[in-house]
């Protein structure tokens, strides 16, 4: 393999891994907005909280237990937040939701500081995912390949869930016409709570997956949240496929930008957002309201 091909392939895989990680963070956010019309700016903070849960659980047991338990714990908290807080302001529009969810985010940050302090915490990469896999002349970290495979698996599972299952059908129907679905005897508020929990569960999954790569610290939400927000906006608010495409695009542009135009690489994500929104203000796959 020639050096330039090697670079192109390696940076491409990096971009794919990073992009899919962003997708995992952003997917819950865009689904909650798209289907429930809730602007949940606390989403990145649930992601951060899950990383802390992962630290605590993995420290006591192992990473695999944390991968199951931490997202579920985050989802339960998410459902409680939706049931007792967000539901109260849902009818009043996006501004109250924004204010409330920003406040929830602040509370979560202070809570993690109170429990775990402010220092950076570390989660070890599980042994089975450490090491490298040979791809011809290339040796690629197993953990990044795990991120790629795991996220694609989750995406396929989501597609199956919402297109092939009864729950998915009910969710889609309820978000289209809640009154009619309610009239059919289905507990629509419960469905919304469960769906919000599902979105938060996705944030929790992302938090666990990211923990072996990054330091777990109170600024983790800010560190990742902005990129996730850009993914949602570029992809189109509410579009899962839009978030997927946007995330991959951003990941690849980031990697190749660092390789070939490092001085402007930090700007590329925002340049992309500016270009997309100027051509299509609703995002790549967004629909006009």
């Amino acid at each position: 393999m020639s050096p330039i091909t090697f670079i192109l392939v390696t940076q491409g895989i990096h971009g794919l891994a990073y992009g899919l990680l962003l997708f995992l963070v952003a997917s819950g956010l865009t689904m909650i907005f798209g289907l429930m019309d809730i602007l949940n700016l606390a989403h990145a903070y649930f992601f951060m909280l899950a990383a802390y849960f992962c630290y605590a659980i993995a420290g006591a047991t192992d990473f695999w237990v944390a991968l199951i338990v931490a997202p579920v714990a985050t989802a339960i908290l998410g459902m409680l937040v939706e049931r007792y807080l967000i539901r109260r302001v849902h009818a009043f529009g996006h501004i109250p939701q924004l204010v409330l969810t920003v406040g929830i985010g602040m509370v979560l940050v202070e809570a993690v500081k109170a429990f775990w302090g402010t220092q950076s915490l570390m989660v070890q990469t599980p042994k089975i995912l450490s090491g490298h896999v040979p791809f011809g002349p290339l040796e690629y970290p197993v953990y990044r390949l795990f991120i790629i495979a795991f996220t694609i698996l989750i995406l396929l599972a989501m597609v199956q869930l919402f297109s092939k299952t009864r729950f998915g059908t009910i969710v889609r129907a309820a978000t289209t016409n809640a009154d009619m679905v309610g009239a059919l005897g289905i507990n629509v508020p419960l469905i919304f709570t469960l769906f919000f929990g599902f979105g938060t569960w996705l944030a929790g999954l992302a938090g666990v997956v990211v923990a072996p790569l990054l330091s777990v610290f109170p600024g983790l939400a800010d560190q990742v949240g902005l990129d996730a927000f850009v993914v949602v906006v570029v992809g189109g608010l509410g579009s899962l496929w839009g978030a997927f495409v946007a995330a991959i695009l951003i990941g690849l542009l980031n990697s190749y930008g660092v390789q070939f135009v490092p001085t402007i690489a930090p700007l590329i994500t925002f340049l992309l957002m500016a270009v997309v929104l100027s051509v299509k203000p609703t995002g790549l796959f967004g629909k006009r309201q």
Partner: protein
Amino acid sequence: MKSSRMNRMMFVALLVVGFFIMGMPASGLAVNSSFDPSKMSDMSGFDPNTVVQPTGDTFKLGYMQILSGPAAANGELFWPVVNWVAYDLNKRGGILVDGKRKMIQIIKGDTQGKPAATKQEAERLCLEEKVNVLWGTSGSHLAKIISDVSNKYKVPFVNCLSLSDELMDAKNFKRYTFQTVSDTTQWNMAMAYFFKNRPQDKRFSILCQDYLYGHSMANAFKKALAEYRPDAKIVSEDYHGLWLKDFAPFLTKVMAAKPDILYTGDWMPDGDNLLKQARNMGLNVPIANIYITNPEAWKAVGVEGSKNLLICYQFMSGDTPQTPAQKMIMKAWHKQWLKWKEPYNKLIYAWPDFVIGQTLSDTYWLFDVIQRAGTTNPEKIISTWEGDQYGSIQGVRTMRAQDHQALFDMYVGVTTYPTKQVYPGALYSKGYAGVHKVTVIPEKYCTPPIPEGLKNRLMK
């Protein structure tokens, strides 16, 4: 006869004493004062979670740090340091200033990591709380603001954390500010000098944060390396945004350049993330750094991943304390740490090494100067500190009078495994590498030049 013999004996005795005194500078005993470990209080009651600040007629130290926001880890990190010193000295009866014994009171000032908040808090501490001295801070841009405020209100400011060369240059120098931490030039001279004796390291990659500090560090390193190792080659140079999430694209470029050494000035969390992701990607070259000293990060990458970190700092113990005072402090602190609860029970607080040891040593120096000055009058404190030579916990510190920059030997430690017990029953590190061998970089090889414009400051 008898009296002339007595006179001869007196003469010889005086001669011996005279030679002894004259020989003192050569023997390195010409310090004005030293940290005396035998006088340290019983610290068995010290717990940073439960410190109670004295009130009344106290000596007030304004603790200017980032106490809230994403970088609040900085404020948390040094809280035990200042309170340890205060607790120790208070237990001895306080410090003798202005003819009275005063307890030391630590008053917090939250910079929030923002210039406006820093100015506001510094002014509040000076004008409302009437602190006697300001202590801080993380962030050279914030240290500059505190320096300006301290100069305006004539309150001494000890900068023991911010490295930028600009802080004490001719343009920004302020009489009331004393910098006890190495500046960027000093640090990089030491790091580059270390490689003078490692001819096998020829190819260097630089990866730093993309802002003033990162570029300053890189530029200073390149300059110093060109002087001490003209045969060395910079094979790659990149700068990344702060709080980078994915180092992989940068590390791929580094790996393609095939360096012998990766140099970085990154601080937390970037430094820790760089280490994790580099080792995860199979980049196992030694990493020359200043701030990748968080044992949590070392533990996360395991034994192999934590080996070969080349850490340069002005305070370093590792598993082999360099001085009796350092050994005593390491033992006393670690024994207490074993009892601390969240958040101070984390590994980063386990040993008073690197930046924790340095700030601890500098804070003792500060109070030693104040006690020798015998007053809270800032002018007397300044005149006592200028030109001072102090035997610190680790080595002699000299406060250069012209620019108020402290000078000292620097140290470079290489992490290896296993490490030894610092004292019986207390292993320095378990499950990860730690600093064992420490190389001393003598002061003369890492003394920055006096800034132009300040050379004749005291002659005016």
